[in-house]
């Protein structure tokens, strides 16, 4: 990031801390999409962009800009309802990234907070209980 870019980022964060309504520089905004049938949570950092993926921890994918492999443009979390631990050191740098969330009151929330919020929104379970959102007959019969 350039010096100007870094300065703009710092100013934006400072301004947003004072009042979220007077931001002069747009913050990163994520749109969240949950695919219940496959239990996949998609977080798109707007605007939508094509991405190449990397699984940085089991079922936790980071989406990188197609033309800029250093720039993160989203996340994809498989078996989201089974995401029981957020203490994987490999996830730490991502979990501290901050975003506004479309269609929510979340502003400058850390990814960790957003995932907790998404769990409550899509599974209505504040505590961690492994489950599948749509139980599969094979799984039921295999128990």
């Amino acid at each position: 990031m350039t010096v100007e870019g870094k300065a703009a980022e710092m100013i934006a964060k400072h301004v947003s801390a004072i009042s979220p309504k007077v931001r002069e520089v747009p913050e990163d905004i994520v749109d969240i999409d949950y695919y219940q049938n496959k239990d996949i949570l998609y977080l798109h950092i707007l605007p939508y962009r094509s991405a190449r993926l990397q699984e940085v921890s089991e079922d936790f994918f980071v989406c990188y800009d197609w033309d800029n492999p250093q720039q993160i443009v989203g996340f994809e979390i498989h078996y989201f309802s089974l995401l029981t631990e957020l203490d994987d050191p490999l996830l730490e740098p991502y979990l501290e990234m901050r975003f506004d969330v479309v269609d929510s009151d979340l502003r400058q929330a850390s990814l960790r907070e957003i995932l907790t919020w998404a769990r409550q929104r899509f599974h209505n379970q504040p505590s961690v209980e492994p489950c599948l959102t749509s139980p599969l007959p094979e799984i039921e019969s295999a128990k």
Partner: protein
Amino acid sequence: MDEVPIIPLASLGEAFQIFVGYVEGGILDFEGKRIEADFGDYTHVIHDENRIKRVSWIEPTAQEPDGVWLWRSRKPSKRQLDIRQQTYIKWIRPAKKEPPELFVLGVERLPTGRLRLRSWYSANNPEAELEKLGKGEQLYDRRRQGR
């Protein structure tokens, strides 16, 4: 690396038609097993044009992969459900002058052996992807088959 096959990308219209075929008839893999797909797999990545255009790579990767690995989860909750991950990879070029991409096809294997499509993507870091896969059980290696 051996010569990398060229598989043209689909147009956005073609991609949808190809995917309809996957949903209706499934995707046959290298063992003739059927991988089930549904429209949600497609609609939830519709924002990603490059991913949609690579729908045309899904079946060739399943049928003639460079490698296939089977994974058992490290997560106790997932192990309890006995869901395993079957990952197919294939090096592909979209055109003669384009660089090769490591294309990854993620499939879940349910306890009954049923296969369901989960994801497809180009790896951002092919070396890391191959290193990760190497820790799983390799089911297929094209080089050993002499193909």
